[in-house]
């Protein structure tokens, strides 16, 4: 029999510490929607998504009500559209984006991810069409997320693609200038992208996956923060233990919801993503966990070590709690979506260089960072190249979600609303990287011996 303390602890986590399931994401294979005709292809895509995911939102709501755990998002990830739409030979994929948008509205999901291309070694004609369609696609739709994989540890970094993405991000920013360049918040540029990530903006359904799959992303920075408060001043050994135990509990809940959702939807269970995903709400911040460890402000010296410990302990605790772990798994540090990060960057303590260092040990990368609207495309590209290099050399996933906020400069604030939050515009280095990006070509895959 469960005891009173255990039951009340769970309820307190849910009520006061913002414990939630961040997302149930259904992955859907769209390769069978390929067609030589763009309109028919778009129609097939819409038909398949609305058929496969018709009960997704209802199922999420039912589980939320029966188990009493908030399920914040219901999402869909699809096969990278550059593969699905290649056979149309079209020179623009905006129509596909609109079909996806319609499917998102008809199924009631919060986002569909997978308006994507994998170009880490080279770019097909279709990949190029997709990338060129991004500004219009992200401006005309509300629920579509895009991603482009520009590097892998095995292939190196496609610097032509990095350069093109720098220019594309500026075009997206301009296209959505009336909304604080919101379009850029729906695009992730990856190194070592994973095929089963349930989180946006980078979710897509990889070609190694089955026809459909359920992946679940958990959350709970507030729960970890609360647990650490009870061991003020204790040694790091204790800090690690407390994080592991708490992550285990959070993940067990994610596993239960994932298994239940998969069973009810009659779709195979894929993975649980062991992530600490913050929100802009007070008490749901990753930065505040780092500060709880003894840092005056997130971003000061010691932040990288604190984040490394947190990220590792979350994985160690979570991995035992789930039968299959995958996705991005770790602590996210999206600046605009984390109340403590917003405060630290407004103070000027958390800057681009420290964020880059933190991405060496966190789960993803430079996430939801607003930069001045007049930033040069080559500077954006160079930031992405740095980030890709960290991923490629360290054999980890890294990503960039940078938002050059058109018309705004350092000290001003971009407001995206909802989970995407508010981002103070932070400075980038003024010195040019133009000639570096202009070289193009590929940075070769790294050596994986002689590790120093």
């Amino acid at each position, binding site marked *: 029999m*469960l005891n009173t303390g255990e039951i009340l602890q769970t309820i307190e986590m849910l009520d006061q510490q913002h414990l939630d399931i961040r997302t149930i994401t259904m992955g859907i294979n769209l390769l069978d929607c390929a067609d030589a005709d763009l309109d028919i292809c778009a129609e097939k895509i819409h038909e398949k998504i609305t058929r496969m995911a018709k009960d997704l939102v209802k199922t999420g709501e039912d589980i939320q*009500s029966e188990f009493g755990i908030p399920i914040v998002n219901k999402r869909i990830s699809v096969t990278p559209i550059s593969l699905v739409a290649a056979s149309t030979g079209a020179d623009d994929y905006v129509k596909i984006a609109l079909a996806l948008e319609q499917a998102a509205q008809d199924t009631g999901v919060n986002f569909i991810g997978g308006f994507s291309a994998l170009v880490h070694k080279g770019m097909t004609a279709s990949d190029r069409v997709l990338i060129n369609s991004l500004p219009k696609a992200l401006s005309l739709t509300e629920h579509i997320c895009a991603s482009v994989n520009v590097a892998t540890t095995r292939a190196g970094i496609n610097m032509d693609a990095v350069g093109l993405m720098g220019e594309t991000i500026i075009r997206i920013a301009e296209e959505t200038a009336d909304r604080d360049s919101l379009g850029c918040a729906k695009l992730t540029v990856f190194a070592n992208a994973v095929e089963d990530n349930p989180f946006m903006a980078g979710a897509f359904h990889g070609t190694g996956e089955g026809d459909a799959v359920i992946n679940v992303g958990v959350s709970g920075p507030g729960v970890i923060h609360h647990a650490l408060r009870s061991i003020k001043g204790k040694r790091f050994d204790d800090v690690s233990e407390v994080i592991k135990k708490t992550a285990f*509990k959070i993940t067990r809940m994610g596993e239960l919801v994932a298994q239940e959702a998969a069973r009810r939807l009659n779709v195979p269970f894929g993975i649980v993503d062991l992530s600490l995903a913050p929100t802009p709400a007070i008490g749901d911040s990753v930065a505040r966990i780092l500060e709880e460890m003894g840092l005056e402000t997130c971003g000061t010296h010691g932040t990288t070590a604190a984040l490394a410990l947190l990220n590792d302990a979350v994985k160690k605790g979570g991995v035992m709690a789930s039968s299959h772990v995958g996705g991005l798994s770790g602590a996210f540090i999206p600046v605009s979506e984390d109340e403590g990060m917003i405060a630290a960057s407004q103070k000027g303590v958390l800057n681009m260089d420290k964020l880059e260092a933190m991405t060496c040990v966190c789960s993803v990368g430079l996430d939801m960072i607003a930069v001045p609207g007049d930033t040069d495309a080559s500077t954006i590209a160079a930031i992405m190249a740095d980030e890709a290099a960290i991923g490629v050399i360290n054999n980890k996933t890294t990503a960039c979600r940078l938002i050059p906020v058109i018309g705004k400069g350092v000290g001003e604030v971009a407001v995206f609303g909802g989970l995407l939050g508010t981002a103070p515009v932070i400075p980038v280095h003024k010195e040019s990287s133009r000639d570096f990006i202009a070289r193009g070509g590929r940075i070769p895959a790294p050596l994986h011996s002689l590790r120093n």
Partner: protein
Amino acid sequence: MKAIVTVIGKDQVGIIAGVCALMAERNINVLDISQTVMQEYFTMIMMVDLTLYSGSFEELQSCLDVWGRERNLSIRIQREDIFEAMHRI
């Protein structure tokens, strides 16, 4: 299916009687009850068996919610599995 009902709020006469009556009307068997009063705050945890209950979970939930609100109590009902998953290996 087993579920856990938790009632939290200011202590008053008839909380357990009221919740039990709601359960009995719906053919829901009460398996276990524990309650404490700390600084006037009442906390009750009740395990119930829904096997013979023919209505929907939502109906039960909203009826408990309405009953609780009228008395300034927070009442929730959740499937037992979530607590088992979190606290038992």
